[in-house]
């Protein structure tokens, strides 16, 4: 690096300053003659510039060699005026045709006009995501870009978000896209031990200017082995030359449960539990011995000696307690942001700070973030520009009992399933049923007082993150520049989990504390040589070549202890037993050379090339290096002369095609090495065992994407849109290839198998009402649709099914539902029936009766609908998203639909259960033993799988912009008020808390319905 700096310095010495200059002034107006403020006025080819005042006037010192002045402003067409010797230059700017102004970011700091770009790139603007009570940017793009499938794992603020661009190409390797924030390739692995801490939550989404998503390989290949799953490029807001602007942005609101589950009351529970005992023992549910047994189980005193009459009156007298109401609450949402930006022709800056406090319905998942950003750019000389941006943030989350799973002490899991006659509090207000009390627990499998457990347990997960970069830009010639970039993404994750000595899980061991610390250092550096020149006014060429190095080190420490003197002591130095300690290290290294070349002829025909050659430490010793690349071309048909006649109808038309290939190394850091590691402890000694088989020939997985797109605008852009079709083929999949388990090994990382994703993406925009003047009624609607078909094309050794995983089969999507079909309930006996391989109904099914039923992981159809309506100062924004075509099984509901009565039951299951011969229903009879003798379990087959289709009203915002005439009186430059609602309505017949989840929803903290009120002030 040192050499680079000294070289930089040497280059500075060559720069030359212009000396002579003169003063030019003038006024800038719009088409109607109204003055325009804040227009950038610049001498072409120099950094000399200023902005217009509130009255539209400017004064500029033009160097002697200055020949042309450039006037530019957001939403206006840029014009250039050649100056002679005059000292007054006025300009009139026209409102720009929006489509022509749009730009996309294509990687390594390159910004290109969307018109000139041939790749498949979706853009999401700041306006689409700002001021939403969302903590991380990945969640914000849900339903906003075609072909980008976003699912929340759960409702934990800062929880994991699943993002898939154009399906998923890998079976074992990661399918996550690469995130590049202001040039830094981010580490997005969740290293939190006690809750989910989404690394992207470090960035306040309101600091984002734009998000560009590279979907095709020809575009993404510039980022090489990290980019096979697409690239999400995030550009933050920058300062602009002009008067310093202050912005205050705040919102406040509440988070409510989406819904409560309708579960049975104590009398109904008594009835169903009696049926369960009766059916298991061939006794009538209302026989006295069963009444006594059930009432005794429910801890009714003296139940063992009850008469029929006594038992009946005891059952009637049972109380019902609503555990869900007690476990879930309404959370508060608070967000404050303060920003300042401005600068002059030499330097621009933007600084911002934010504080976010987002509570959710379970107290132990609250999220708080403190963040600050600084962005500075300085033109040191005409040729030399230095820039930096630094983001520091610290976010802290409370630690829930568990992020998911069937943990007895987890309120999210147990609240709906605790037997309803269990009281929550004793008469004196203390917690009922806690260890040491009388009784010491609740009745039933879910025997923990979760309200007490949630109250007593504590812990936090804190992520401190520093993300920053510095860039040096040197103009060697007007058409050639050299850039050096160095970036750091440093993250420290600290966590602490305390199982309180008063709770059942830690009562006997007298308290349990676990701590963790994890440091991740991700360093990115690159240098590029950038070229841009137009030859003979027709041949525009831009290109860059570069070199990159990335390294990541991760080390962690953890410790666990138990046996604390009293519950007030929770720090490990008071622990009697050090239960375990752990330490680990991992990391990877990558380097690459890369290049990009674009050529455009007359603005009509474009062609672009990407090439890259990567080295990766993850790959086998014999295959460390991999090439990626692609070609893309576009034809702006609307610029052809034969289109001139119909330009009123067809305002824009462009045909694009691309083809590219990207290698991927998205596997474990040391998967290619033959290793001996920890082999457990025995008899006080620590062992070593073969932990990983060597795979010296392990190479990259290759993803090839071909893409054809058509962009169009009709009737003066009243209708705009893009249609895109693609085929993505992933070959030499990085698979943890299963080995026969009798060999002593579970698997080996090898390149085997092939996968295909193909699909169609459609983006359509309508402007049914367009404002003629400001404040008129305006409306626009955007519709997004994506279809993706994922198919496993090939495994290995001719196998049609991956050994050990029936969900991975040739010809089907990954995770395809392959099981027996539920055949209803035998009306005569109440026992569950299934279809066998011959289509006959049977009580007991076998493996051979399984059939292919449909996809479970990725929904083949998804998208969104966004609409915006404006009148006077009012704006109403409405955003929907939808998913269609996937099956899911909801673990939480499966527990609540069991047929044994060991936990509480959904009202639906109770109302439809089989009770009498002849009854036709889908819900089998109750049976204490769950599975009927010589029958398959009631949870078997596809009985618990349902279509997971939904449409969700993701966001509604009504805002009011205070008219500028009032602003001056208030000494404000802008003021905006808004009310907003998230997840207000969902079209879905899903039983459980939330239809949106990944995997199983057992015990997840569900998403919430949010209402916020906000205020944005500009000074």
């Amino acid at each position, binding site marked *: 690096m040192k050499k*680079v700096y000294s*070289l930089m310095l040497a280059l500075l010495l060559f720069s030359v300053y212009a000396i002579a200059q003169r003063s030019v002034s003038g006024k800038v107006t719009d088409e109607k003659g109204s003055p325009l403020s804040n227009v950038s006025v610049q001498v072409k080819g120099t950094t000399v510039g200023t902005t217009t005042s509130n009255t539209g006037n400017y004064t500029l010192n033009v160097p002697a060699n200055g020949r042309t002045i450039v006037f530019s402003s957001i939403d206006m067409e840029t014009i250039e005026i050649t100056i002679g010797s005059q000292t007054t230059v006025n300009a009139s700017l026209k409102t720009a045709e929006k489509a022509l102004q749009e730009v996309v970011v294509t990687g390594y700091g390159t910004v290109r006009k969307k018109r000139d770009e041939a790749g498949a790139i979706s853009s999401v603007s700041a306006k689409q995501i700002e001021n939403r009570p969302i903590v991380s940017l990945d969640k914000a793009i849900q339903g906003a870009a075609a072909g980008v499938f976003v699912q929340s794992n759960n409702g934990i603020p800062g929880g994991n978000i699943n993002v898939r661009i154009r399906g998923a190409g890998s079976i074992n390797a990661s399918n996550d896209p690469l995130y590049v924030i202001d040039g830094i390739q981010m580490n997005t692995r969740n290293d939190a031990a006690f809750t989910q801490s989404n690394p992207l939550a470090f960035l306040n989404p309101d600091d984002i200017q734009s998000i560009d998503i590279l979907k095709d390989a020809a575009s993404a290949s510039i980022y090489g082995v990290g980019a096979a799953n697409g690239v999400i490029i995030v550009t933050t807001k920058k300062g602009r030359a002009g008067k310093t602007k202050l912005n205050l942005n705040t919102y406040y609101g509440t988070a409510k449960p989406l819904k409560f589950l309708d579960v049975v009351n104590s009398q109904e529970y008594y009835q169903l539990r009696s049926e369960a005992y009766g059916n298991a*023992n061939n006794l009538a549910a209302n026989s006295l*011995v069963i009444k006594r047994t059930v009432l005794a*189980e429910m801890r009714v005193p003296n139940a063992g000696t009850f008469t029929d009459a006594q038992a009946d009156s005891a059952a009637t007298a049972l109380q019902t307690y609503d555990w869900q109401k007690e476990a879930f609450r309404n959370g508060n949402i608070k967000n404050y942001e303060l920003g300042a930006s401005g600068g002059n022709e030499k330097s621009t800056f933007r600084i911002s700070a934010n504080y976010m406090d987002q509570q959710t319905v379970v107290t132990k998942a609250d999220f708080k973030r403190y963040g600050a950003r600084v962005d500075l750019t300085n033109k040191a000389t005409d040729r030399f520009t230095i820039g930096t941006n630094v983001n520091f943030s610290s976010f802290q989350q409370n630690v829930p009992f568990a992020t998911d799973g069937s943990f007895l002490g987890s309120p999210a899991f147990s609240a709906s399933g605790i037997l309803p006659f269990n009281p929550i509090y004793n008469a004196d207000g203390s917690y009922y049923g806690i260890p040491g009390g009388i*009784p*010491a*627990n609740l009745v*039933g*499998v879910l025997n923990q007082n979760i309200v007490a457990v949630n109250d007593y347990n504590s812990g936090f997960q804190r992520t401190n993150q520093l993300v920053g970069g510095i860039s040096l830009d040197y103009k*060697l010639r007007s058409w050639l520049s*050299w850039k050096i970039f160095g970036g750091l993404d440093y993250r420290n994750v600290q966590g602490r989990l305390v199982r309180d000595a008063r709770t059942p*899980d830690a009562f*006997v*061991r007298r308290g349990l504390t676990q701590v963790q610390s994890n440091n991740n250092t991700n360093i990115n550096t690159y*240098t590029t040589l950038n070229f841009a020149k137009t030859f003979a006014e027709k041949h525009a060429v831009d290109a860059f070549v570069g*070199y990159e*190095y990335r390294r990541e080190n991760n080390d962690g420490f953890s410790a666990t202890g138990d046996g604390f003197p009293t519950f007030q002591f929770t720090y490990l130095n008071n622990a009697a*037993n050090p*239960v375990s300690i752990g330490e680990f*290290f*991992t990391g990877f*290294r990558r*380097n690459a050379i890369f290049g990009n070349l674009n050529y455009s002829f007359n603005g009509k025909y474009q062609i672009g090339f990407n090439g890259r050659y990567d080295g990766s430490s993850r790959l086998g010793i014999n295959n460390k290096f991999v090439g990626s690349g692609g070609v893309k071309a576009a034809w702006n048909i609307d610029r052809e002369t034969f289109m001139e006649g119909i330009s009123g109808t067809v305002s824009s038309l462009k045909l694009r095609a691309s083809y590219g290939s990207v290698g991927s190394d998205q596997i474990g*850091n*040391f998967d290619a*090495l*033959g*290793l*001996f*590691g*920890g*082999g*457990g*402890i025995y008899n*006080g*000694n*620590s*062992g070593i065992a*073969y932990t990983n*088989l*060597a795979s010296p020939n392990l190479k990259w997985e290759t993803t090839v994407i071909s893409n054809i797109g058509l962009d169009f605008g009709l009737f003066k852009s009243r209708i705009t849109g893009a249609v895109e079709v693609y085929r993505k083929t992933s070959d030499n999949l990085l698979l943890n*290839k*299963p*080995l*026969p*388990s*009798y060999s*002593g*090994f*579970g698997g080996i990382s*090898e390149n085997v198998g092939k996968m295909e994703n193909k699909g169609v993406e459609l983006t359509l925009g309508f402007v049914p009402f367009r404002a003629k003047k400001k404040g008129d009624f305006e409306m626009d609607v955007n519709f997004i649709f994506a279809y993706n078909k994922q198919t496993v094309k090939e495994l290995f050794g001719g196998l049609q099914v991956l*050994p*050990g995983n029936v969900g991975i089969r040739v010809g089907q999507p990954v995770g395809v539902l392959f099981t027996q079909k539920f055949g209803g309930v035998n009306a005569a006996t109440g026992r569950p029936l299934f279809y066998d391989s011959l289509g006959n109904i049977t009580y*007991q099914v*076998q*493996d051979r009766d399984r059939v292919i039923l449909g996809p479970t992981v990725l929904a083949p159809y998804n998208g969104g609908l966004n609409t915006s309506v404006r009148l006077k100062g009012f704006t109403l924004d409405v955003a929907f998203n939808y998913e269609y075509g996937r099956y899911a099984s909801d673990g939480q509901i499966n527990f609540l639909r069991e047929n044994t009565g060991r936990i509480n039951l959904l009202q639906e299951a109770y109302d439809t259960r089989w009770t009498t011969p002849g009854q036709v229903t889908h819900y089998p009879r109750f049976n204490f*033993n*769950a599975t009927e003798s010589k029958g*398959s379990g009631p949870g078997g087959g596809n009985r618990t799988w349902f279509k997971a289709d939904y449409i969700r009203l993701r966001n509604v915002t009504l805002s009011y912009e205070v008219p500028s005439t009032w602003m001056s009186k208030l000494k404000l430059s802008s003021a905006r008020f808004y009310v907003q609602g998230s997840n207000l309505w969902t079209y879905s017949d899903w039983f459980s808390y939330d239809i949106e989840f990944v995997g199983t929803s057992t015990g997840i903290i569900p998403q919430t319905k949010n209402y916020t009120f906000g205020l944005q002030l500009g000074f």
Partner: protein
Amino acid sequence: MKNFLYKTSLLIVCLGMFATSCKKQLDISPRQSIDANIALKTRAGINASITAVYAILKNARIYGRDMITHPEALADNGFATNKSGRLLPEAQNNFGAHFTTTIWSQCYRAINQINLTLAAIPTLAETPAPTAAEIAAWEGQLLFLRGLFHFILVEVYSYMPGAVVTAQDRGGVIISLEPIATGDGAQNFKPARAPIADVYNRIVLDLTAANSRLSNPGLGVNLANKAATQGLLARVNLYRADHAEAKRWADSCITIAGSRLTTTANHVSNWRSDTHAETLFQVRFGSSAENIGVNESLQTSFTTLVTAGNPASLGGFGDLVPTLTLLTDLGITLQGGMTTANFAVNAVIASRSTDVRNLLFEPGSNGRGPAKVETTKFLGKAGFINLDNVPVIRIAEVYLIRAEAQAASGSTVLNLVGALADLKTLKSRRYTDYTGSAQELADNTATQAQLFEEIIRQRRIELAFEGHRFFDLKRLGRDLVKAPHYNTVAFTDRRILPALPTADIDFNPNLKQNFGY
């Protein structure tokens, strides 16, 4: 232009500096693992590798839980309380509910590590070189363990010699003796299941070789030792109905193990201590880091109690408890009589026989549903709740083996007097009033069949909840009679044997799946 050329060439030089040493930039090594090629080149490496093999025994699918719980649940000893839902499918003998494929994969993982270690011992280049005694101790342990792991596999996955449903017999298990250390080696290893007899022969060969290398008392009961090896040889030979060899090894084992049988006075206290005095070999669970925990440890599987005699304090789930028939054999009578109705409600013990072994059974907590009579053999004896050493073989079993070998029909060493003597040696240490009792009189006058049945009944009582019952019924070819709780499973039913991992069958066309799967 000159200027420009200068700058450009500088730039190229600079980029060149970046690009040199491209390959070196990619260097990074793991830090909590080491290269497999050097791992077993040292004395310490060999010791650590052997430690890891023992550690596999602790897996919850082997002696951590399943090898103890499943023989009780699958057979007629265990009733599943459904307090956590665990072990209910096994107790009901639901199709597919059996030993899981993990026991298969973990045993073979251990065996391969044994083979790798055995192969590495002669290649050690340490100074000073390993002594003959060191090598004997290493090989002795490894051969003992290889015999034990093959034995676990064959008793779980195959019929036993002498009790084979021929039409449904798919053979023994894979015998693995060669180390596998590469992906190709693993993929090309496509053996068939060896015949049952061959597997038993191999086990006996390994154990006999271990016996000649191990010493007594040697490394203690937590590790392989001579007495345990001989006890295991007695068991293996009994399982393959080689009564003469069973007796021979039992004789030798009892001689070298010395007088370890507990008495009526100290039987219960031995079950309360960390290590039972009768233990020949146990799987050690020594520190809280090794704790299997509240869901699957033996303590939580078998009892809701934290300490004996204190049902007010609720511990684990108590998923598997004695059936009515086992309670009857134990000499425990429930209040109201031995009916399912009385069994369903909170259990109260009305009376006990003079058998001290039933003192290891008592009513648990009613905190998770009606209290049941539960076993307290596993009660956090290693110092923490849910942490217990797991006896694999006790001397009492060796006495019962010797008795059975001499009383079994068709035994080549038939000796009813000898069998009776062993039975009485044990019973006089279990029943407080045995000597001179009517029971003793009955034993003295028993026919061969009656004597044999009494030995089997004593095995059920003595070894209850120690993981024997299912294997005993299986090797005798008996139906699993589970009344009054569950339906009987005939010995010819496919559910007697579990399924081999389907993935392995898919890989290896030579490997036959068990009947009915």
